[in-house]
Structure formats: C-alpha cells, structure tokens
C-alpha cells in the first residue's frame, strides 16, 4: 500500500476515525495493529524480519538495562568498601558484558540488512529475495535506540508492544524520518483528544506532499527515465537537463513523502522529526548535508562518525601521528578516517551497486577538499570583505552547491559508473543545446502543457521555500483570512486532482527512497 494510492487514503481515513472513537488508552495499540496491517501489504512474509529486529532489540536492550541497574545497586551498596580502582574495574567488567549484548544485536541486525541488500552478489544469487519494505530505515532506527540504551542515555522500554510500535510505525516506515525513541515516545504513547489544529496541520502537510509528489516528481520521472535509459541518444545538453530534472524530481519525491509521513502522524497527534530544511538554498556541500535527510545525517554523526573518530584507539593513534608527523597530519587523521568510513557506508546504505559507493566517496572528497580550502576562503574574504556580503555572491554559492550536488547525484540514475562518467564527458564534447529547443524537449515524454504545469508548480514550491525563510509557511497560511486560506487549499487540491501525473506512462506507485 503506497502513500500515493487511493487505498492508503481510505486506510488513513478509517484509522483516524477509529483512533478518536476508541478509549484513549488503546490508541497506541490500534497504531501497532495498523502498522502491521500496513506492513503486511508489502508481503506478509517480510513481517518475519521486522519482528526479528524488534524482538532482538527489545531483548538486548532489557539485558543492557538490567546490567546498568545491577551496577548502580552494587556500587551504592558496596561503595564504602571499594577503592577507586575497584570501582573502575567493576564498571569496566559491566561495560564489557554490555558490549557483548550490543555487538551481538548489531551484528545480527546489520548482518541481516547487509545480506538482504547484497544478496544479488552472493555466489548463490539473490535466491529471489526482495529487500523488505523499509528495512534500511527501521534497522537504523532500532539500532540507534539500542546504542542509546548502551550509552545510558535513557531507560529501555520494558513493554515489547511499545517498542514494536516504535520500530514499525507505518508513516515513517517507508522512507523515514529516522526517529529517536526518547523524542518520539512523548507523543507516540500519549493519550490524544481530537484536536482541530493537529487535523488542519496534518491535512495541509499531506496535501502539499501529494502536490509535490504527483504534480512534480511523477511528471518529471518520465523525462528523467527517457534520458538516463537511453544514454546513447541523449548526451551533452540532455545530460545537464537530466541532472537538473532529477534534482527537482528527487526533492519533490522525497520531501513530498516526508510531508505525507509528518502530516499523517500529526493527524494522530504524533510529532515526527523534520527531515529537510530547504536544502537547495545551502551555500556549501557541508551545509547541504546538514539540511538534507537530516535524520540520517545525524544518525551517522552520532552513531558512527563520533564513535570512530574519538575512540580510544583513534585518539592514541592520532597522538602517535602528532608526535611523529606533527599536528597537521595527527589531528586530521581521525576526521579523514571517520569521514571516509561514514561516506562509504552512506553510499552502501543507499544501494548495492558500485554507483552508490562512488557517490558516497565523491561526497566525502568534496567535503574534505572544502575543509582544506577553508583557510583560503577566509583569506579571500578578509581581503575582500564586501564581496561575501553581496546578494550575487550568495546566489553564486547557492547555485554552485546545487550544481555540484546535482552532478554527484547523477550517479544514482545511470546504470553504471562508467556510463555516468561517459555522460559527464559528453557535456563537454557534445554541443547540442539548440537541439533541446528544436523539438528535443518534446521527445522526452512530456508535452508543452506538462512543461507549463511543471514550471508553475516548481515556481510555487520555490515561492513557499523562500517564504519559509522567515518562519513556518503553515503558520503564515493559518493566520491569513479564512476565504484566502480555503481558496489556497482548494487550489492545491484541484491541482493535485487535475495535474497529478496519473495513468499510462506515469508511475505514481513508488517513492524513490522506499527502495533504499
């Protein structure tokens, strides 16, 4: 059951009515049943994987929690008789036992994810295994929770059913956001009264999500597919056009899906974390990665980048390097090593083909080169302080970041790394810009009317993004006069109905990130 389907709308409508009719203490149980019902549509057999992740995470977290409490009680009872060394050694012993549970559970779950994701590369072939829906997302979410428990950030959830809902909550299952238990539990397990503000906000986000998904993303996918599946016919200017179209398509598709997830959750009184902060207005690639798919970025930062870069082993190795080669190399090494590992994993998380690994490592390269160039930028700006303050320069920075990201992202869409680089090369060797305006654009599966709809729809999204710089646009809409507000809702609703890309030649069934 996909978000952009009629059955999903019916499912949500029935769920919301039931949710506010039943006794409030049963609301979260209804959500658990609804989440498993939703998941079973993807294939009842895949429930085994999500149940296994839930059970293993729950059991390991309970064991970790028990060890923590044993330690607290033991130290409180025996503190007087223990020396500082005794206490340290006892803590180290408990930590070691906790580490065994943590590592076993991480290996089991990440191992399952890796085997399923890379099954096609096994000597026995994929054996017909299709990646279970949302496994990359729920595995990361569950393992993030387990690491938090290991670190003692908060207590483990004793109720298995509650943890099962956290892992399987259907709006975030398909493509995130990747939530943190301590943030989500506040609203997920609370008792909710019907609240008109939540319903209004939820419906606004859902409608806006459908607009981006159906009017923009599912229209552009036709042209993008035509360009990338025919690399011999479409080179030069078409490659640039494909980069540009794919950047817009991916943004509309992914943010549209997240809008729907956040909107549906809000209908139920549950607040999911935001996943985007107008990323295409970023002035550098590091800033872009702070504003795009934020929950995945912070996951990698908190659970991978820092644990690797500040680990005891890394710190002592860094110290040795500093003594031998100086601060320059010694201080950079933890950052470089952790960044390369994180970006390699980010690439592997996105897909099992080499394209994604290259994509991840190229992102890393650009970030590290930018980092090295930072003193040069600072020198330039201290010499010419006025330039950095001009609108034109900021526009240049935003445009440069957009094109750089679009260039890297092209690796997502072509079938191989070789083809992608061949296509990059064709931008400089095949001069066919005029061909686009001599009928070329209309050969991509879109009509003149489609381009007009796209231009207006993208213009509207751009306008809303610009307006959001000074605060939530939803709040601005809500504070406008009622006739204007309802006219805006009606306009977007009609646009989705009339201009949504449905029917033959269009594919509104899949969100891009659901395949990761």
């Amino acid at each position: 059951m996909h978000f952009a389907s009629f059955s999903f709308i019916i499912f949500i409508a029935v769920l919301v009515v039931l949710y506010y009719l039943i006794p409030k203490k049963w609301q979260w149980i209804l959500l658990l049943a609804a989440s498993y019902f939703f998941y079973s549509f993807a294939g009842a057999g895949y429930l085994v994987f999500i149940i296994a992740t839930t059970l293993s995470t729950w059991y390991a977290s309970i064991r970790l929690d028990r060890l923590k409490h044993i330690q607290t009680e033991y130290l409180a009872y025996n503190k007087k008789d223990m020396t500082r060394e005794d206490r340290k050694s006892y803590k180290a012993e408990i930590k070691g036992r906790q580490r065994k549970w943590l590592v076993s559970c991480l290996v089991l779950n990440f191992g399952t994810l890796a085997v399923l994701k890379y099954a096609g590369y096994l000597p026995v072939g994929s054996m017909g295994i299709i990646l279970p829906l949302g496994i990359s997302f729920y595995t990361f979410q569950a393992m993030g929770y387990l690491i938090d428990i290991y670190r003692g950030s908060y207590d483990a959830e004793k109720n298995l059913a509650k943890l099962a809902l956290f892992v399987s909550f259907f709006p975030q299952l398909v493509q995130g956001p990747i939530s943190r238990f301590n943030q989500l539990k506040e609203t997920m397990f609370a008792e909710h009264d019907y609240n008109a503000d939540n319903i209004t906000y939820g419906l606004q986000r859902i409608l806006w999500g459908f607009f981006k998904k159906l009017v923009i993303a599912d229209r552009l996918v036709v042209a993008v597919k035509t360009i990338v599946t025919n690399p011999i016919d479409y080179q030069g200017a078409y490659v640039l056009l494909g980069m540009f179209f794919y950047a817009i398509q991916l943004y509309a598709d992914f943010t549209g899906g997240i809008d729907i997830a956040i909107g549906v959750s809000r209908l139920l009184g549950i607040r999911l974390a935001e996943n985007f902060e107008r990323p295409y207005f970023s002035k550098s690639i590091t800033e872009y990665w702070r504003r795009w798919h934020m929950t995945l970025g912070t996951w990698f930062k908190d659970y991978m980048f820092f644990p690797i870069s500040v680990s005891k082993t890394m710190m002592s190795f860094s110290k040795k390097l500093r003594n031998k080669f100086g601060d320059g190399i010694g201080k950079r090494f933890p950052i470089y090593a952790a960044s390369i590992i994180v970006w390699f994993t980010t690439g592997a998380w996105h897909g099992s083909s080499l394209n994604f690994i290259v994509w991840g490592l190229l992102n890393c390269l650009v970030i590290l080169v930018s980092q090295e160039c930072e003193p040069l930028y600072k020198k330039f700006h201290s010499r010419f302080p006025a330039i950095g303050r001009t609108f034109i320069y900021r526009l240049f920075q935003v445009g440069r970041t957009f094109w750089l990201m679009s260039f890297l992202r092209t690796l997502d869409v072509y079938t191989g790394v070789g083809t992608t680089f061949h296509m990059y090369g064709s931008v400089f060797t095949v001069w066919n810009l005029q061909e686009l305006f001599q009928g070329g654009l209309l050969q991509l599966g879109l009509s003149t009317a489609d381009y007009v709809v796209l231009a207006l729809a993208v213009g509207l999204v751009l306008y809303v993004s610009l307006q959001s710089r000074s605060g939530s646009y939803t709040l601005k809409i809500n504070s406008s006069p009622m006739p204007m507000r309802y006219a805006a809702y009606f306009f977007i609703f009609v646009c989705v109905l009339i201009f949504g890309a449905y029917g033959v030649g269009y594919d509104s069934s899949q969100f891009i990130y659901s395949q990761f």
Partner: protein
Amino acid sequence: MDALIEILQDLHPDVDFNTCDTLIDDKIFDSFDIVSLVTDVSEEYDITIPVEEIVPTNFNSAKALWALIERLIEDE
C-alpha cells in the same frame, strides 16, 4: 580554564568564548571542530572523553566544556 580558552581560540579566533553559550545551537562548531577539540582537550588534560559525552549541552559553551573536563578528571 585558560588553556581551554586558548584551544578554543585556536579553533575559532573570531568567537568570544567567555560569553558565547550557543556554540552548537548556532552551528559555530561543526562535527570536524568537535573531533579536533576532543583531540586537543584529551591531550592537554590527559583524559578520555567518551562518545556518550559528545552531546550539545557539553559543547555549547566553554563553561560547559570545562565542567565536563573537571568531571572526567575527577572520574579518572
């Protein structure tokens, strides 16, 4: 504390670390800065900063970071 301020000034000479208490919230420090800082502080005070201590509240100001260092020295 003076040595800590010196380490921080090396990292961002343009920031007043005696008054600023939004180093993370205002994105003055990025993750690379944090790693660099942890490396310097570990070396200077001969302590290990565990990863679970790398949270915004411990790095938002020089004062908060100093409190963390004192606590870790006490625990060592």
